[in-house]
């Protein structure tokens, strides 16, 4: 941190140094995240493609309108906002942990890592509630002239276009791709959050044991942070694709 060398005259690409002024570990992490971005990108683009190929799609405000302990109150977008804020906040604590790492402040890193881990677990818990709610919540659907009770699963979607039946509006079966993609993509994202939490716990233990003080830098925290922010980044797009539009 003492160097004041100006990077302007450096011949970055001439060998003997990193052209990015970054360790290979960090470069690798960035490229891994790029690669993962293509995995998620492919999922979300497939979702978009199928959605474009359908005449009718589900209105997210009808599906995601409940809140724990709120009974049958119609609260569209409320719960997912909570989830989003939890994830943004855990991102902030993560970046603060990285910041403390730059200052070689072990106590600070520990504190913020704990907060980040709690944020991650809270997000996963919310997701568990939402999944349970969708998998068990039953809705009336008109199937072959009869009313059935359906829950939302990977192969059933009770949120199709509404028709008049016996004098009241009833939904027909909707595109089953909705549930398939919802569970598949949020599941894959949740898996990333889960592995992020595990990584963060390992980093916390390593910090606690003083590994990074011995090493003289907290670059591992930085790399774990990159992963964690990426998970947040993906959620931003999942939030967009499934809940907002």
């Amino acid at each position, binding site marked *: *941190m*003492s*160097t004041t*060398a100006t*990077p302007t005259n450096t011949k*970055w690409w001439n060998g003997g*140094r*990193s*052209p*990015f*002024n*970054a*360790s290979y570990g960090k470069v690798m992490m*960035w490229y891994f995240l*790029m690669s993962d971005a293509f995995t998620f*990108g492919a999922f979300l*683009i*497939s979702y*978009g*493609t*199928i*959605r*474009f*190929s359908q*005449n009718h799609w589900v*209105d*997210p*405000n009808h599906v995601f309108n409940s809140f724990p302990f709120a009974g049958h109150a119609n609260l*569209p977008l409320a719960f997912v*906002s909570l989830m*989003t*804020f939890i994830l*943004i906040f855990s*991102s*902030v604590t*993560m*970046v603060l942990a990285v910041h403390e790492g*730059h*200052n070689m402040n072990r106590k600070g890193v520990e504190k913020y890592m704990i907060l980040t881990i709690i944020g991650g677990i809270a997000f996963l818990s919310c997701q568990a509630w939402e999944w349970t709610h969708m*998998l*068990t919540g039953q809705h009336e*659907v008109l199937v072959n002239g009869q009313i059935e*009770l*359906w*829950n939302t*699963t990977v*192969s*059933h979607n009770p949120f199709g276009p509404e028709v008049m039946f016996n004098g009241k509006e009833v939904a027909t079966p909707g595109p089953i791709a909705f549930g398939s993609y919802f569970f598949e993509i949020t599941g894959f994202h949740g898996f990333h959050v889960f592995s992020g939490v595990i990584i963060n716990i390992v980093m916390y233990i390593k910090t606690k044991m003083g590994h990074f003080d011995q090493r*003289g*830098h907290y670059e591992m925290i*930085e790399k774990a942070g990159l992963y964690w*922010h*990426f998970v*947040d*980044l993906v959620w*931003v797009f999942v939030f*967009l694709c499934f*809940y*907002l*539009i």
Partner: protein
Amino acid sequence: MSAHSASPEITFHADHSGGTKKIWRTFWLLSVITVIELAIGLAIYNIHKGEAPNHTLVLMFKGVVCILTLAKAYYIVSIFMHLGDEIRNMIMTIVVPLCLFIWFIIAFLWDGNSWKNLRNTDAGSREYKTEQVAKPAAIEKGAKD
């Protein structure tokens, strides 16, 4: 710091001594954008509830939400992931390959849209739809899924 600078890969160390002000400012920025997005989401909800939904308006709102999401992504990558603090070479090697997404998205969605047109005109495949017998009962199956 000495051990870190022992690596020949690193030419100089970035200055991280700045405070946490920037981080918190980004946090508030992200929060505000999210709140705006939610407001638009609710606006769309209310438009749909109305008698004659204005589809152009809905589409416009959705476009705005997409742009806001890209803004959020920019702030997360640039501030939280510190890409903005890296040197230009690094930024370019991350950003340029992401441009592949442009054609990836356009081509896929374009084809998806054309399948819809095919579906709506292809009578053959619709016929099975109407004949289709009962789907397996959902309630018991749902638990298994």
